[in-house]
Protein backbone atom coordinates (compact mmCIF):
# COMPACT_ATOMS: atom_id res chain seq x y z
CA UNK A 1 0.00 0.00 0.00
CA UNK A 2 1.44 3.35 -1.05
CA UNK A 3 1.75 5.72 1.87
CA UNK A 4 3.79 8.73 0.74
CA UNK A 5 3.26 10.07 -2.76
CA UNK A 6 5.50 12.84 -4.07
CA UNK A 7 4.24 14.26 -7.37
CA UNK A 8 6.17 16.70 -9.58
CA UNK A 9 7.68 18.43 -6.61
CA UNK A 10 9.73 21.58 -7.18
CA UNK A 11 11.46 23.75 -4.64
CA UNK A 12 12.99 27.08 -5.57
CA UNK A 13 14.81 29.18 -3.01
CA UNK A 14 14.84 32.84 -3.93
CA UNK A 15 17.97 34.66 -2.89
CA UNK A 16 18.87 38.26 -3.54
CA UNK A 17 20.65 37.84 -6.84
CA UNK A 18 19.50 34.44 -8.13
CA UNK A 19 17.00 31.63 -7.78
CA UNK A 20 18.34 28.30 -6.61
CA UNK A 21 16.40 25.28 -7.84
CA UNK A 22 16.81 22.83 -4.98
CA UNK A 23 14.34 20.24 -6.24
CA UNK A 24 12.99 19.60 -9.72
CA UNK A 25 10.45 17.07 -10.98
CA UNK A 26 10.62 14.78 -8.01
CA UNK A 27 8.25 11.83 -8.29
CA UNK A 28 8.37 9.20 -5.64
CA UNK A 29 6.00 6.59 -4.20
CA UNK A 30 6.84 5.07 -0.86
CA UNK A 31 5.06 1.97 0.33
CA UNK A 32 3.92 1.48 3.90
CA UNK A 33 6.62 -0.21 5.94
CA UNK A 34 9.37 0.58 3.46
CA UNK A 35 12.82 1.77 4.55
CA UNK A 36 13.95 4.38 2.03
CA UNK A 37 17.26 6.24 2.06
CA UNK A 38 17.81 9.56 0.29
CA UNK A 39 21.46 9.59 -0.73
CA UNK A 40 23.57 12.34 -2.24
CA UNK A 41 26.28 14.95 -1.62
CA UNK A 42 25.48 18.12 0.31
CA UNK A 43 23.42 20.54 -1.70
CA UNK A 44 21.53 17.81 -3.57
CA UNK A 45 18.26 18.69 -1.90
CA UNK A 46 17.81 15.49 0.08
CA UNK A 47 17.15 17.37 3.32
CA UNK A 48 14.95 19.83 1.42
CA UNK A 49 12.82 16.91 0.24
CA UNK A 50 12.66 15.49 3.76
CA UNK A 51 11.63 18.87 5.17
CA UNK A 52 8.95 19.12 2.52
CA UNK A 53 7.52 15.74 3.52
CA UNK A 54 7.77 16.82 7.18
CA UNK A 55 5.84 19.98 6.34
CA UNK A 56 8.50 22.38 7.63
CA UNK A 57 9.19 23.88 4.25
CA UNK A 58 6.52 23.29 1.64
CA UNK A 59 7.42 22.78 -2.03
CA UNK A 60 6.98 25.68 -4.44
CA UNK A 61 5.39 23.31 -6.96
CA UNK A 62 3.84 19.85 -6.99
CA UNK A 63 2.09 17.92 -4.25
CA UNK A 64 3.07 15.60 -1.43
CA UNK A 65 0.40 13.37 0.05
CA UNK A 66 0.56 11.09 3.07
CA UNK A 67 -2.19 8.47 3.27
CA UNK A 68 -4.02 10.42 0.58
CA UNK A 69 -3.93 13.73 2.47
CA UNK A 70 -1.87 16.65 1.16
CA UNK A 71 0.94 17.79 3.47
CA UNK A 72 0.42 21.40 4.54
CA UNK A 73 2.09 21.56 7.96
CA UNK A 74 4.23 19.50 10.35
CA UNK A 75 2.37 16.86 12.28
CA UNK A 76 2.82 13.99 14.71
CA UNK A 77 1.98 11.43 12.00
CA UNK A 78 5.44 12.17 10.57
CA UNK A 79 7.84 12.03 13.50
CA UNK A 80 11.19 13.64 12.82
CA UNK A 81 14.57 12.66 14.22
CA UNK A 82 17.04 15.52 13.76
CA UNK A 83 20.78 15.27 13.34
CA UNK A 84 21.22 17.73 16.21
CA UNK A 85 18.94 15.62 18.44
CA UNK A 86 16.62 18.55 19.27
CA UNK A 87 15.81 17.17 22.70
CA UNK A 88 14.42 19.72 25.13
CA UNK A 89 17.31 20.26 27.55
CA UNK A 90 15.06 21.36 30.43
CA UNK A 91 13.21 18.05 30.40
CA UNK A 92 14.58 14.76 31.68
CA UNK A 93 14.81 11.74 29.41
CA UNK A 94 11.42 10.47 30.59
CA UNK A 95 9.82 13.92 30.26
CA UNK A 96 11.17 14.32 26.74
CA UNK A 97 9.63 11.01 25.71
CA UNK A 98 6.34 11.80 27.45
CA UNK A 99 6.02 15.34 26.09
CA UNK A 100 4.67 14.40 22.65
CA UNK A 101 2.04 12.17 24.24
CA UNK A 102 1.06 14.90 26.72
CA UNK A 103 0.54 17.25 23.82
CA UNK A 104 -1.85 14.68 22.35
CA UNK A 105 -3.71 14.61 25.70
CA UNK A 106 -3.26 10.87 26.23
CA UNK A 107 -4.32 9.60 29.66
CA UNK A 108 -1.60 9.78 32.32
CA UNK A 109 -1.46 6.06 33.02
CA UNK A 110 -1.09 5.24 29.37
CA UNK A 111 1.73 7.77 29.00
CA UNK A 112 3.76 6.43 31.90
CA UNK A 113 3.30 2.83 30.75
CA UNK A 114 4.43 3.78 27.28
CA UNK A 115 7.42 5.72 28.60
CA UNK A 116 8.50 2.70 30.65
CA UNK A 117 8.15 0.46 27.62
CA UNK A 118 10.19 2.77 25.39
CA UNK A 119 12.91 3.22 28.00
CA UNK A 120 13.15 -0.55 28.00
CA UNK A 121 13.15 -0.90 24.20
CA UNK A 122 15.90 1.70 23.76
CA UNK A 123 17.92 0.56 26.78
CA UNK A 124 17.52 3.90 28.51
CA UNK A 125 16.15 2.71 31.85
CA UNK A 126 19.16 3.86 33.84
CA UNK A 127 18.91 7.34 32.31
CA UNK A 128 15.25 7.97 32.99
CA UNK A 129 15.71 11.04 35.21
CA UNK A 130 18.87 12.42 33.62
CA UNK A 131 18.94 15.64 31.64
CA UNK A 132 20.15 15.54 28.01
CA UNK A 133 23.35 17.43 28.92
CA UNK A 134 24.49 14.34 30.85
CA UNK A 135 24.07 11.97 27.89
CA UNK A 136 26.41 11.02 25.06
CA UNK A 137 25.41 11.70 21.45
CA UNK A 138 24.34 8.10 20.92
CA UNK A 139 22.17 8.15 24.04
CA UNK A 140 20.57 11.42 23.01
CA UNK A 141 19.65 10.00 19.65
CA UNK A 142 18.07 7.00 21.38
CA UNK A 143 15.91 9.42 23.36
CA UNK A 144 14.97 11.25 20.16
CA UNK A 145 13.92 7.96 18.57
CA UNK A 146 11.94 7.01 21.67
CA UNK A 147 10.18 10.38 21.54
CA UNK A 148 9.05 9.74 17.97
CA UNK A 149 7.99 6.17 18.80
CA UNK A 150 5.96 7.53 21.71
CA UNK A 151 3.84 9.52 19.30
CA UNK A 152 2.94 6.39 17.37
CA UNK A 153 3.77 8.12 14.11
CA UNK A 154 3.41 5.61 11.28
CA UNK A 155 6.21 7.46 9.46
CA UNK A 156 9.67 8.28 10.79
CA UNK A 157 11.65 10.98 9.03
CA UNK A 158 15.34 10.95 9.86
CA UNK A 159 17.73 13.72 8.84
CA UNK A 160 21.27 12.32 9.00
CA UNK A 161 20.48 11.13 12.52
CA UNK A 162 23.76 9.31 13.04
CA UNK A 163 25.98 11.80 11.19
CA UNK A 164 27.59 13.18 14.34
CA UNK A 165 28.31 9.81 15.99
CA UNK A 166 31.50 7.80 16.01
CA UNK A 167 31.65 4.70 13.77
CA UNK A 168 30.98 2.10 16.48
CA UNK A 169 28.09 3.93 18.10
CA UNK A 170 26.73 4.52 14.65
CA UNK A 171 26.71 0.83 13.69
CA UNK A 172 25.16 0.03 17.03
CA UNK A 173 22.32 2.51 16.50
CA UNK A 174 21.81 1.36 12.92
CA UNK A 175 21.19 -2.16 14.23
CA UNK A 176 18.82 -0.81 16.87
CA UNK A 177 16.97 1.16 14.25
CA UNK A 178 16.53 -1.91 12.04
CA UNK A 179 15.23 -3.85 15.04
CA UNK A 180 12.77 -1.08 15.90
CA UNK A 181 11.72 -0.67 12.29
CA UNK A 182 10.79 -4.36 12.13
CA UNK A 183 9.20 -4.46 15.58
CA UNK A 184 7.04 -1.36 15.13
CA UNK A 185 6.43 -1.63 11.38
CA UNK A 186 7.31 1.98 10.61
CA UNK A 187 7.81 3.59 7.23
CA UNK A 188 11.22 5.25 7.32
CA UNK A 189 12.56 8.02 5.13
CA UNK A 190 16.21 8.42 6.02
CA UNK A 191 18.61 11.08 4.72
CA UNK A 192 22.30 10.26 4.59
CA UNK A 193 25.42 11.04 2.62
CA UNK A 194 27.03 7.74 3.60
CA UNK A 195 26.78 5.16 0.82
CA UNK A 196 27.56 2.33 3.21
CA UNK A 197 24.92 3.44 5.68
CA UNK A 198 22.28 3.55 2.98
CA UNK A 199 23.12 0.04 1.73
CA UNK A 200 23.26 -1.31 5.26
CA UNK A 201 19.83 0.02 6.14
CA UNK A 202 17.55 0.55 3.17
CA UNK A 203 15.08 -1.42 1.11
CA UNK A 204 15.45 1.26 -1.48
CA UNK A 205 18.03 3.97 -2.11
CA UNK A 206 17.12 7.16 -3.92
CA UNK A 207 20.33 8.70 -5.32
CA UNK A 208 19.89 12.41 -5.95
CA UNK A 209 21.69 14.78 -8.29
CA UNK A 210 23.37 18.00 -7.25
CA UNK A 211 21.49 21.18 -8.05
CA UNK A 212 18.90 21.00 -9.30
CA UNK A 213 18.03 18.05 -7.10
CA UNK A 214 16.46 15.32 -9.19
CA UNK A 215 16.28 11.57 -8.78
CA UNK A 216 19.30 10.01 -10.46
CA UNK A 217 18.69 6.41 -9.53
CA UNK A 218 16.01 4.50 -7.66
CA UNK A 219 17.91 1.47 -6.42
CA UNK A 220 16.34 -1.54 -4.70
CA UNK A 221 18.56 -3.33 -2.24
CA UNK A 222 17.79 -7.02 -2.20
CA UNK A 223 20.70 -8.25 -0.08
CA UNK A 224 19.15 -10.22 2.82
CA UNK A 225 19.50 -8.78 6.35
CA UNK A 226 21.57 -8.76 8.45
CA UNK A 227 23.85 -7.33 5.80
CA UNK A 228 27.57 -7.79 5.92
CA UNK A 229 29.41 -4.64 4.76
CA UNK A 230 32.42 -6.78 3.80
CA UNK A 231 30.44 -9.14 1.53
CA UNK A 232 31.18 -8.97 -2.24
CA UNK A 233 27.59 -8.12 -3.25
CA UNK A 234 27.56 -5.29 -0.67
CA UNK A 235 30.79 -3.90 -2.07
CA UNK A 236 29.68 -4.24 -5.65
CA UNK A 237 26.63 -2.10 -4.95
CA UNK A 238 28.77 0.27 -2.92
CA UNK A 239 31.13 0.78 -5.87
CA UNK A 240 28.26 1.32 -8.27
CA UNK A 241 26.50 3.87 -6.08
CA UNK A 242 29.84 5.43 -5.21
CA UNK A 243 30.43 6.29 -8.87
CA UNK A 244 27.00 7.92 -9.10
CA UNK A 245 27.46 9.94 -5.94
CA UNK A 246 31.00 11.00 -6.85
CA UNK A 247 29.80 12.44 -10.17
CA UNK A 248 27.43 14.66 -8.24
CA UNK A 249 30.02 15.46 -5.59
CA UNK A 250 32.38 16.67 -8.36
CA UNK A 251 29.69 18.95 -9.75
CA UNK A 252 29.16 20.25 -6.22
CA UNK A 253 32.89 20.90 -5.77
CA UNK A 254 33.21 22.60 -9.17
CA UNK A 255 30.24 24.80 -8.32
CA UNK A 256 31.76 25.82 -5.02
CA UNK A 257 35.01 26.80 -6.72
CA UNK A 258 33.11 28.81 -9.31
CA UNK A 259 31.18 30.66 -6.62
CA UNK A 260 34.35 31.34 -4.67
CA UNK A 261 35.93 32.80 -7.83
CA UNK A 262 32.96 35.15 -8.32
CA UNK A 263 33.24 36.40 -4.76
Amino acid at each position, binding site marked *: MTQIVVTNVQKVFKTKDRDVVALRDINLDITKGEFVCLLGPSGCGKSTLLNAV*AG*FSLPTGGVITVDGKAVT*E*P*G*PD*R*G*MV*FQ*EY*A*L*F*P*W*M*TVAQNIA*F*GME*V*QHKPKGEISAKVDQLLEVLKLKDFRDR*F*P*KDLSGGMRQRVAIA*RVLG*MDSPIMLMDEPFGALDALTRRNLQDELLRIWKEFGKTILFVTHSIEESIYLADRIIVMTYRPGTIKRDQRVTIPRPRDPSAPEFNELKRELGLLVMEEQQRHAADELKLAAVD
Partner: protein
Amino acid sequence: MNAKIKAFFTGIIVPLVAVLLWEGAARAGFFSPVVLPAPSAVAIKWWQYLAPALPWDSTQQSWLAWLFSGEMIDDAIGSLYRVVVGFIVGAVLALPLGLLMGASTRIYALCNPLVQVLRPIPPIAYIPLAILWFGLGNPPSVFLIAIGAFFPILMNTIAGVRHVDGIYLRAARNLGVGQWTLFTRIMLPAATPYILAGVRIGIGTAFIVVIVSEMIAVNNGLGFRILEAREFMWSDKIIAGMFTIGLLGLALDTAVSALNNHLLRWHRGLEH
Protein backbone atom coordinates in the same frame (compact mmCIF):
# COMPACT_ATOMS: atom_id res chain seq x y z
CA MET B 1 37.08 19.06 53.44
CA ASN B 2 40.67 19.79 54.24
CA ALA B 3 40.90 21.97 51.15
CA LYS B 4 37.80 23.84 52.30
CA ILE B 5 39.31 24.61 55.70
CA LYS B 6 42.48 25.74 54.01
CA ALA B 7 40.53 27.99 51.65
CA PHE B 8 38.68 29.46 54.62
CA PHE B 9 41.88 30.37 56.43
CA THR B 10 43.45 31.73 53.25
CA GLY B 11 40.39 33.89 52.68
CA ILE B 12 40.30 35.28 56.19
CA ILE B 13 43.90 36.56 56.30
CA VAL B 14 43.46 39.85 54.45
CA PRO B 15 40.23 40.94 56.21
CA LEU B 16 41.73 40.02 59.58
CA VAL B 17 44.90 42.03 58.95
CA ALA B 18 42.82 45.00 57.73
CA VAL B 19 40.63 44.95 60.84
CA LEU B 20 43.67 44.64 63.15
CA LEU B 21 45.40 47.58 61.45
CA TRP B 22 42.21 49.59 61.72
CA GLU B 23 41.78 48.70 65.39
CA GLY B 24 45.42 49.55 66.15
CA ALA B 25 45.23 52.87 64.33
CA ALA B 26 42.00 53.77 66.15
CA ARG B 27 43.43 52.89 69.59
CA ALA B 28 46.60 54.85 68.85
CA GLY B 29 44.36 57.87 68.26
CA PHE B 30 45.35 58.45 64.64
CA PHE B 31 41.83 59.66 63.92
CA SER B 32 38.81 60.85 65.84
CA PRO B 33 36.23 58.14 66.71
CA VAL B 34 33.58 60.36 65.14
CA VAL B 35 35.34 60.15 61.78
CA LEU B 36 36.17 56.46 62.00
CA PRO B 37 35.37 54.47 65.15
CA ALA B 38 37.37 51.36 66.08
CA PRO B 39 36.05 48.06 64.70
CA SER B 40 35.49 46.85 68.25
CA ALA B 41 33.22 49.84 68.89
CA VAL B 42 31.35 49.08 65.65
CA ALA B 43 30.96 45.43 66.70
CA ILE B 44 29.53 46.41 70.06
CA LYS B 45 27.14 48.87 68.43
CA TRP B 46 26.13 46.24 65.89
CA TRP B 47 25.28 43.84 68.72
CA GLN B 48 23.27 46.51 70.57
CA TYR B 49 21.48 47.35 67.32
CA LEU B 50 20.66 43.67 66.82
CA ALA B 51 19.76 42.73 70.42
CA PRO B 52 16.32 43.45 71.96
CA ALA B 53 16.21 46.81 73.74
CA LEU B 54 14.22 45.65 76.77
CA PRO B 55 14.66 42.58 78.99
CA TRP B 56 12.30 39.71 78.32
CA ASP B 57 8.94 39.95 80.07
CA SER B 58 6.93 36.77 79.66
CA THR B 59 3.65 38.59 80.39
CA GLN B 60 4.27 41.02 77.53
CA GLN B 61 5.36 38.82 74.64
CA SER B 62 6.58 35.39 73.59
CA TRP B 63 10.26 34.57 73.78
CA LEU B 64 10.62 34.38 70.03
CA ALA B 65 8.92 37.75 69.48
CA TRP B 66 11.22 39.24 72.10
CA LEU B 67 14.28 37.72 70.42
CA PHE B 68 13.40 39.46 67.18
CA SER B 69 12.35 42.74 68.74
CA GLY B 70 15.71 44.44 68.14
CA GLU B 71 15.78 47.59 66.07
CA MET B 72 17.97 46.04 63.36
CA ILE B 73 15.63 43.11 62.79
CA ASP B 74 12.75 45.54 62.41
CA ASP B 75 14.74 47.66 59.93
CA ALA B 76 15.95 44.64 57.96
CA ILE B 77 12.42 43.22 57.71
CA GLY B 78 11.15 46.62 56.56
CA SER B 79 13.81 46.89 53.85
CA LEU B 80 13.37 43.29 52.76
CA TYR B 81 9.61 43.68 52.57
CA ARG B 82 9.95 46.68 50.24
CA VAL B 83 12.51 44.90 48.07
CA VAL B 84 10.36 41.79 47.74
CA VAL B 85 7.08 43.60 47.04
CA GLY B 86 8.69 46.07 44.64
CA PHE B 87 10.58 43.32 42.90
CA ILE B 88 7.46 41.20 42.48
CA VAL B 89 5.50 44.14 41.08
CA GLY B 90 8.32 44.90 38.63
CA ALA B 91 8.77 41.27 37.61
CA VAL B 92 5.06 40.57 37.19
CA LEU B 93 4.83 43.54 34.80
CA ALA B 94 8.11 42.90 32.97
CA LEU B 95 7.79 39.17 32.37
CA PRO B 96 4.61 39.02 30.25
CA LEU B 97 5.53 42.20 28.39
CA GLY B 98 9.00 40.80 27.70
CA LEU B 99 7.57 37.49 26.47
CA LEU B 100 5.16 39.32 24.15
CA MET B 101 7.81 41.71 22.87
CA GLY B 102 10.22 38.85 22.31
CA ALA B 103 7.71 36.66 20.51
CA SER B 104 5.94 39.22 18.34
CA THR B 105 7.79 41.62 16.10
CA ARG B 106 4.69 43.81 15.90
CA ILE B 107 4.40 44.26 19.66
CA TYR B 108 8.14 44.83 19.77
CA ALA B 109 7.89 47.55 17.13
CA LEU B 110 5.04 49.18 19.06
CA CYS B 111 6.61 49.13 22.52
CA ASN B 112 10.32 49.30 21.92
CA PRO B 113 10.64 53.06 21.26
CA LEU B 114 8.97 53.94 24.58
CA VAL B 115 11.06 51.34 26.41
CA GLN B 116 14.24 52.75 24.93
CA VAL B 117 13.33 56.28 26.00
CA LEU B 118 12.41 55.30 29.57
CA ARG B 119 15.12 52.73 30.17
CA PRO B 120 18.10 55.08 30.55
CA ILE B 121 16.33 57.11 33.27
CA PRO B 122 17.82 55.88 36.57
CA PRO B 123 15.13 54.81 39.06
CA ILE B 124 16.56 57.37 41.49
CA ALA B 125 15.45 60.14 39.10
CA TYR B 126 11.85 59.10 39.72
CA ILE B 127 12.09 60.01 43.43
CA PRO B 128 10.52 63.50 43.21
CA LEU B 129 7.67 62.19 41.09
CA ALA B 130 7.25 59.15 43.35
CA ILE B 131 6.83 61.37 46.43
CA LEU B 132 4.50 63.69 44.55
CA TRP B 133 2.32 60.78 43.45
CA PHE B 134 2.46 58.48 46.46
CA GLY B 135 3.47 60.69 49.40
CA LEU B 136 5.85 59.19 51.95
CA GLY B 137 6.24 55.63 53.27
CA ASN B 138 6.16 52.30 51.51
CA PRO B 139 4.25 53.17 48.30
CA PRO B 140 6.85 55.47 46.71
CA SER B 141 9.63 53.11 47.75
CA VAL B 142 7.88 50.10 46.24
CA PHE B 143 7.22 52.11 43.07
CA LEU B 144 10.90 53.01 42.72
CA ILE B 145 12.06 49.45 43.37
CA ALA B 146 9.56 48.11 40.83
CA ILE B 147 11.03 50.44 38.20
CA GLY B 148 14.53 49.35 39.15
CA ALA B 149 13.64 45.68 38.73
CA PHE B 150 11.40 46.15 35.70
CA PHE B 151 13.90 47.07 32.99
CA PRO B 152 16.61 44.46 33.53
CA ILE B 153 13.99 41.70 33.60
CA LEU B 154 12.19 43.13 30.57
CA MET B 155 15.32 43.44 28.44
CA ASN B 156 16.59 39.99 29.32
CA THR B 157 13.22 38.34 28.76
CA ILE B 158 13.01 39.88 25.29
CA ALA B 159 16.55 38.71 24.50
CA GLY B 160 15.83 35.26 25.94
CA VAL B 161 12.74 34.69 23.81
CA ARG B 162 14.49 35.98 20.70
CA HIS B 163 17.40 33.62 21.23
CA VAL B 164 15.34 30.45 21.55
CA ASP B 165 17.02 27.95 19.23
CA GLY B 166 14.88 27.33 16.16
CA ILE B 167 15.48 23.59 16.39
CA TYR B 168 13.34 23.42 19.56
CA LEU B 169 10.50 25.17 17.79
CA ARG B 170 10.76 22.80 14.84
CA ALA B 171 10.83 19.76 17.10
CA ALA B 172 7.82 21.09 19.01
CA ARG B 173 5.84 21.76 15.84
CA ASN B 174 6.68 18.26 14.68
CA LEU B 175 5.20 16.91 17.91
CA GLY B 176 2.00 18.80 17.12
CA VAL B 177 2.36 21.46 19.82
CA GLY B 178 -0.18 24.31 19.80
CA GLN B 179 0.60 28.01 20.31
CA TRP B 180 -0.05 28.15 24.05
CA THR B 181 1.95 25.02 24.87
CA LEU B 182 4.72 26.25 22.62
CA PHE B 183 4.83 29.43 24.66
CA THR B 184 4.64 27.92 28.14
CA ARG B 185 6.57 24.69 27.73
CA ILE B 186 9.14 25.51 25.06
CA MET B 187 9.81 29.26 24.75
CA LEU B 188 9.56 30.09 28.46
CA PRO B 189 11.90 27.34 29.72
CA ALA B 190 14.27 27.90 26.80
CA ALA B 191 14.45 31.58 27.77
CA THR B 192 14.94 31.02 31.52
CA PRO B 193 18.75 31.33 31.50
CA TYR B 194 18.36 34.86 30.15
CA ILE B 195 15.37 35.68 32.33
CA LEU B 196 17.15 34.58 35.49
CA ALA B 197 20.21 36.64 34.60
CA GLY B 198 17.78 39.58 34.37
CA VAL B 199 16.25 38.64 37.73
CA ARG B 200 19.67 38.72 39.32
CA ILE B 201 20.48 42.16 37.92
CA GLY B 202 16.96 43.30 38.84
CA ILE B 203 17.23 42.24 42.46
CA GLY B 204 20.62 43.98 42.69
CA THR B 205 19.10 47.19 41.37
CA ALA B 206 16.13 46.80 43.71
CA PHE B 207 18.48 46.57 46.66
CA ILE B 208 20.30 49.77 45.70
CA VAL B 209 17.01 51.59 45.20
CA VAL B 210 15.52 50.47 48.52
CA ILE B 211 18.40 52.00 50.48
CA VAL B 212 18.23 55.30 48.59
CA SER B 213 14.46 55.51 48.79
CA GLU B 214 14.54 54.89 52.54
CA MET B 215 16.98 57.75 52.96
CA ILE B 216 14.46 60.07 51.37
CA ALA B 217 10.91 58.82 51.55
CA VAL B 218 10.57 56.31 54.41
CA ASN B 219 10.86 56.49 58.21
CA ASN B 220 12.37 53.10 58.89
CA GLY B 221 14.55 50.52 57.21
CA LEU B 222 18.31 50.18 57.02
CA GLY B 223 18.77 53.14 54.66
CA PHE B 224 16.77 55.41 56.94
CA ARG B 225 18.67 54.19 60.01
CA ILE B 226 22.14 55.02 58.76
CA LEU B 227 21.04 58.45 57.64
CA GLU B 228 19.40 59.03 61.03
CA ALA B 229 22.64 57.94 62.75
CA ARG B 230 24.54 60.58 60.82
CA GLU B 231 22.40 63.32 62.36
CA PHE B 232 23.60 62.20 65.78
CA MET B 233 27.19 61.70 64.54
CA TRP B 234 26.92 58.02 65.49
CA SER B 235 29.51 56.82 63.04
CA ASP B 236 29.75 53.43 64.77
CA LYS B 237 26.06 52.91 64.08
CA ILE B 238 26.44 54.06 60.48
CA ILE B 239 29.12 51.47 59.87
CA ALA B 240 27.17 48.81 61.76
CA GLY B 241 24.19 49.61 59.53
CA MET B 242 26.29 49.44 56.39
CA PHE B 243 27.59 46.07 57.48
CA THR B 244 24.03 44.85 57.95
CA ILE B 245 23.09 46.14 54.49
CA GLY B 246 26.02 44.16 53.09
CA LEU B 247 24.91 41.00 54.90
CA LEU B 248 21.33 41.37 53.69
CA GLY B 249 22.52 41.94 50.12
CA LEU B 250 24.69 38.86 50.33
CA ALA B 251 21.76 36.83 51.66
CA LEU B 252 19.51 38.05 48.83
CA ASP B 253 22.09 37.25 46.18
CA THR B 254 22.72 33.81 47.68
CA ALA B 255 18.99 33.09 47.64
CA VAL B 256 18.62 34.19 44.01
CA SER B 257 21.70 32.21 43.07
CA ALA B 258 20.30 29.09 44.77
CA LEU B 259 17.03 29.56 42.90
CA ASN B 260 19.05 29.98 39.71
CA ASN B 261 20.93 26.75 40.26
CA HIS B 262 17.77 24.86 40.99
CA LEU B 263 15.83 26.15 37.98
CA LEU B 264 18.80 25.74 35.65
CA ARG B 265 19.99 22.34 36.84
CA TRP B 266 19.43 21.12 33.28
CA HIS B 267 21.59 23.82 31.80
CA ARG B 268 24.94 22.96 30.27
CA GLY B 269 26.84 26.17 30.94
CA LEU B 270 26.11 26.33 34.66
CA GLU B 271 29.09 27.64 36.54
CA HIS B 272 28.13 28.61 40.04
